């Protein structure tokens, strides 16, 4: 078998929607265009970065371009708070402050902007994080799609938590805090009028309290990740790659709500690659797995927390395997590119 580099036949010179979908194409774009320009960072790419010289402080930024602006279970305003708060939380941090930047398309009804901002403010208040700075730009009709929001957050690490995508170890228990697939299928169903939106809602919510509940376990919490774009499949692949370990999960243990399963069946999607905005994956020391589950289940965000798999010592590093319902094994690959555009 040849080991030559793939010879691309495709047009390469323009950005495709898939480059923003959080899968393999996004990786390629970061590796080939973004990172070479800004200089390599130390260690793996994480949801949030430790501030140089101040490892107790964590920073993260995220832009929100979801369409439609309002969907069952949330809207672009609350999502833009939850998204950044959760990215901070995945490094074990409690949010200290947020910035909010708006890019508004000319013609957006003020009533909609008011509703989004009210929701954003309420979400920040519920989290308990102040919005301390921001920016507003208006662009001409067609230069943006109604409203884009960027939020940047700074948080303080909750010692002794120090989770990182590179910290998974053989034997670790893989825990999931709740059911998967709700956000992606809700947004898609609302946008396309598929009819599932009456039975499901986005899981968009802040996860910092859930992480706080895990804080007493300290260094036994090796990895935290919220499986947003690219879903559980992308998160597990990133962790397996960054930690150089093999991960195995049990298909029957992964909670997929009925409506998500139906929508995915109808649309030919895999729930494992559908985005979430309100659950997290935790890799923890196997000795503390039960404690971690009890801690998560003690608060509302984690009542449905389950163990879905483990880090195995006999698999090739970077590989994620799924034990199927009938008992066979298959590899869970990194999703490629565009599946559900603009879900966050």
């Amino acid at each position, binding site marked *: 078998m040849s080991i*030559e580099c793939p010879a691309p036949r495709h047009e390469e010179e323009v950005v495709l929607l898939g480059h923003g979908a959080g899968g393999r194409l996004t990786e390629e774009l970061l590796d080939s265009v973004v990172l070479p320009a800004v200089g390599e960072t130390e260690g793996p790419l994480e949801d949030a970065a430790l501030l140089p010289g101040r490892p107790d402080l964590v920073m993260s930024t995220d832009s929100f371009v979801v369409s439609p602006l309002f969907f069952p279970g949330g809207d672009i305003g609350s999502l833009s708070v939850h998204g950044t708060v959760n990215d901070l939380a995945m490094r074990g941090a409690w949010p200290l402050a947020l910035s909010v930047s708006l890019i508004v398309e000319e013609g957006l009804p003020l009533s909609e902007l008011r509703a989004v901002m009210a929701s954003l403010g309420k979400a920040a208040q519920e989290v308990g994080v102040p919005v301390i700075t921001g920016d507003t730009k208006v662009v001409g009709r067609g230069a943006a799609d109604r409203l884009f929001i960027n939020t940047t957050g700074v948080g303080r690490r909750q010692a002794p938590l120090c989770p990182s995508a590179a910290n998974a170890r053989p034997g670790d228990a893989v825990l999931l805090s709740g059911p998967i697939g709700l956000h992606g299928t809700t947004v898609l169903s609302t946008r396309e009028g598929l009819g599932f939106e009456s039975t499901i809602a986005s899981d968009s919510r802040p996860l910092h309290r859930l992480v706080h509940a895990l804080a007493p376990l300290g260094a036994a919490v090796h990895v935290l990740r919220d499986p947003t774009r690219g879903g559980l499949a992308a998160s597990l692949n990133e962790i397996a790659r960054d930690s150089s370990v093999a991960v195995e999960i049990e298909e029957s243990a992964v909670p997929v709500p009925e409506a998500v399963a139906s929508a995915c069946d109808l649309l*030919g999607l895999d729930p494992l690659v559908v985005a979430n905005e309100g659950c997290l994956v935790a890799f923890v020391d196997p000795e503390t797995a039960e404690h971690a589950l009890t801690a998560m289940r003690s608060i509302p965000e984690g009542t449905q927390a389950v163990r879905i798999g483990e880090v195995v010592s006999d698999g090739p590093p970077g590989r994620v395997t799924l034990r199927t319902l009938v008992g066979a094994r298959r590899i869970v690959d990194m999703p490629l590119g565009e599946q559900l555009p603009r879900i966050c």
Partner: protein
Amino acid sequence: MRYLDEYRDPLLARQLLDELRRTATRPWRIMEVCGGQTHTLVRQGIDELLPAGMRMIHGPGCPVCVTPLETLDRAMAVAARPGVIFTSFGDMLRVPGTDTDLLSLRARGADVRVVYAPMDAVRLAAAHPDREVVFLAVGFETTAPANAMAVLHAARLGLTNFSLLVSHVLVPPAMTALLDDPDCEVQAFLAAGHVCAVMGWREYEPIAARYQVPIVVTGFEPLDLLEGVLMAVRQLESGRFEVENQYVRAVRRAGNTAAQEAVRTVFRVADRAWRGIGALPDSGLELAEEYAEFDAARRFDVSGLCPVEDPECIAGAILTGAKVPTDCPAYGTRCTPRHPLGAPMVSSEGTCAAFHAAGRVAASVRSTP
């Protein structure tokens, strides 16, 4: 979940596998016709749990895979025109034509939209009377009725800006073409349950009798497939060759006669080229003369295209089951879902993509660290 969970029960699956191991005495070769079935088999790893020597041959029933390159190039040519809204099911967007694909065209400014039903395209046409709305009508007997209904609806609305680029194909001619091939290894078929939900199974009875081959109409869930395989093996073991129905919750012998009527009204049977297989007589559908005004190929002059297949792609051998993806030297290296050389690597129902998604590698590669 009703109609879903009970067909994915791990315990019942193991019981069916045990029963299969007790029943099969020979290394039978069974073809699942439909790409949806291939997807379930490979995703669940069912084909790897079959009794020793028994093999599933993955059939030609992936509409994305068998749509000829010429149709794809026509689609790109139409989509690139100013004023056109080009609509398609999502799967077709990444299929490479000779030079490009619909996603890349969209990134360059073409108005290409994913729809979930052809009726959505009709609604677009009604909402944009100043634009030409074209729907890429591909697929087997399963998708033909909805496409026929879209044309009938557009005709009722008096829309003059809606058309279909048609490349419909039919299952029975492909099965007989495979069986006529002297190298054909297929000893039994799992017929595609959704095709049969529309067409019924009467047209398969003469095939079973003439070629003395068991045909089991089969569904798409893990237990459907296991039961379908078991029914086929029982026939093979007892020397029977009948058409049996595993997918009783969806399929009747006569099929859906109202859907068939809509198809007969709007389409007529025609010769059709299959990607990787070649031209087969009476193996597809085209718009009937009364509805020719809805034919995008006539409305837009897209003749004179000379598509060239990638010489390295063995899609034909894959689609006929003569080879498996891991036999192909380009599989996983020069041909990946990111850079597909041919259609079976593009659609999630394509055999190569199903293998790739399940992380399968050639035996020679697997043994090296």
